[in-house]
């Protein structure tokens, strides 16, 4: 045992020496001076790093963010770097490493990066920090940005109320996250603006993946009389659309135009482009209009909207929705951000 221990210690020390040794020689190339300051009047090379909480190929939230990062690389000529599946334990060190490596923009993909951005930002005044899906953080060099998806949800509420014959509509969301609650409550307000007596039944199923459970929830709502159902349940939403198709009621999708899943059933979808959101905000840095503040991207931008009706909605309803949309953009109608569920 003693011999083994000594051996182990030796191995560990040797490997440490080796590591540090390699580190010494390898460190030189990157530590070159960061471009002579006076001569080049051009802005320095844009280097954008992004921190993801999940996998960049998740077909959902993270992937949308990654597509935005690729847009930044291709259209803004930025050098990009990213960290995926980043555990909470490593948020701060990942942020600091990206900043130390000379990235001048660091994007946190999700509300939860607000704290770390605020904590790290004062130490790196030349770096701009963007936290997307976060409508509260702001500092000198920190901006929280969010798509006003609840505006689009309001429009879909108007649509659902027009399309419903029973006077009962449903909404099914994955979790009662504030951003999802805000959309469901806006959907409710939109519907009530058309028919004050409409019954809006909202369920939070506690999963984005459980297709079977989502389907059950939808069937329960349909059996209770709902004839339009709006979902915000990512992958599980497929089950909701299937239930609507089987029961012959209308469905409203989320994220992308989901009409292709059930062409006779999905009358529209809430469009939300996470990619466009971070691209638009990063472009402000290139344009020189970026400031550290909370910025919301509403219906007037390409970030949120509603999908084509695919001929399933009467023209007069479509016209009315177009009018409401215009009113929201003009500010005549203000859609509130409500983060706690009604009832």
């Amino acid at each position, binding site marked *: 045992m003693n011999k*083994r221990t000594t051996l182990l210690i030796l191995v560990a020390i040797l490997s440490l020496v080796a590591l*540090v040794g390699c580190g010494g020689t*390898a460190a030189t190339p990157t530590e070159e001076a960061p471009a002579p300051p006076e001569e080049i009047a051009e802005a320095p090379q844009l280097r954008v790093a992004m921190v993801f909480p999940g996998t960049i190929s998740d077909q959902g939230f993270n992937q949308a963010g990654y597509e935005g990062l690729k847009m930044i690389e291709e259209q803004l000529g930025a050098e990009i*770097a990213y960290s995926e599946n980043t555990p909470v334990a490593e948020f701060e060190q990942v942020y600091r490493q990206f900043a*130390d490596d000379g990235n001048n923009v660091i994007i946190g993909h999700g509300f939860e990066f607000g704290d770390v951005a605020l904590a790290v930002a004062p130490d790196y005044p030349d770096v701009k920090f963007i936290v997307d899906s976060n409508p509260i953080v702001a500092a000198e060099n920190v901006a929280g940005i969010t798509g006003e998806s609840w505006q689009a949800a309001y429009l879909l509420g108007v649509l659902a109320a027009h399309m419903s014959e029973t006077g009962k509509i449903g909404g099914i969301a994955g979790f*009662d996250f504030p951003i999802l609650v805000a959309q469901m409550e806006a959907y409710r307000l939109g519907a009530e603006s058309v028919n004050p007596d409409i019954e809006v039944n909202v369920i939070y199923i506690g999963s984005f993946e459980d297709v079977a459970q989502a389907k059950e929830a939808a069937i329960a709502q349909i059996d209770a009389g709902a004839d339009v159902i709006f979902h915000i349940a990512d992958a599980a939403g497929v089950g909701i659309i299937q239930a609507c198709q089987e029961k012959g009621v209308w469905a409203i999708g989320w994220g992308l135009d989901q009409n292709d899943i059930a062409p006779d059933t999905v009358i529209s979808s809430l469009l939300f482009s996470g990619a466009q959101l971070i691209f638009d905000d990063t472009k402000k840095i290139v344009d020189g209009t970026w400031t550290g503040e909370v910025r919301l991207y509403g219906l007037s931008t390409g970030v949120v909207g509603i999908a084509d009706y695919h001929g399933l909605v009467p023209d007069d309803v479509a016209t009315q929705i177009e009018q409401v949309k215009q009113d929201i953009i003009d500010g005549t109608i203000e859609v509130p951000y409500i983060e706690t569920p009604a009832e």
Partner: protein
Amino acid sequence: MLAIVGGLLVSGVMIAIAGFDPLETFAVIARGAAGTPQSLGVTLTNATPILLAGLGVALPLRCGLLNIGGEGQIYIGALGATLVAIAFPNLPAPIHLPLSLLAGFIGGGIWGAIPGWMRAVKGLNEIITTIMLNYIGFWTVSYLVHGPLKDPDSYGYAWTIKVPVSARLPIIHEVARVNLGLVVALIVAALVHFLLWRTTLGFEMRAVGAGPQSARFAGIPVTRGTIMSMAIGGGLAGVAGAVVILGVQLRLSDFFSPGYGFDAIAVALVGQTTPVGVVLAALFFGGLQNGTGSAHRTLGIPQEIALVTQGIILLFVIGSQSLTLVRLLRKRRMVRLVEHIR
């Protein structure tokens, strides 16, 4: 040494297949692990919880018990530390911080003592019970941070309020951003060494580990050794949880641990279950994780390849020492056999 070279060779081939330069990658891994004060700091910070939890596995292993429950003990320890930290916001730091750490130790200790007691008194396999307690620990914390302990201003996220400054582990090196938790971990490692080789209790534990039957014949309280080793082991893992919350994350959330309790098992085995070995193994692990993560972030190597590289190197290191594990398992089986025959 051979193991590491072998691991580097095999993972180098993997990296080359993935379309990256293996030498450059290893250089980045090394630099990311210890090339600058900042990266060395990250390595040390990463190593701290797995060092503590690794001791929490190594100590019961000395007593012949395989503690798979590190993860649950970490969660309950973190819970205890968080509760004390946020319940007494007005205590002065010299009292508040040690008290919070102690709460972490007690929380994890209870979570370790339960399977220890079940093993010693009821003869239940501690591998099964510790795994089960992982779930109970994790979901208990999950429930609490979703419910009663949830920060009212969290915008729906499942986490507690931040622990007050007086309960936080202060940063002891500004540039490297290393917190006092590292010192705590090293002191704890020294204490464990002292416990194992300089105290009666430590001797009892080792005697039980060497063979419970002969230990019993020799008049050694097997029950006490079994329970105490699991309780202290659990407590050490609990301190790991406390150190993560009080030093790095500052608030308790579900999924706050990326699996420290499981890394701890590998750390304990690579470290040959000696405190010194565990310290070195934890530093190696911390550096490896930090270095491969850094390769992912700066070279754009897919995270999967980075993790595979990490896994291959570990596999080689553990493989070269597999004799320890085999010996341990064989001993356990013999003991069971003897008990069975009797």
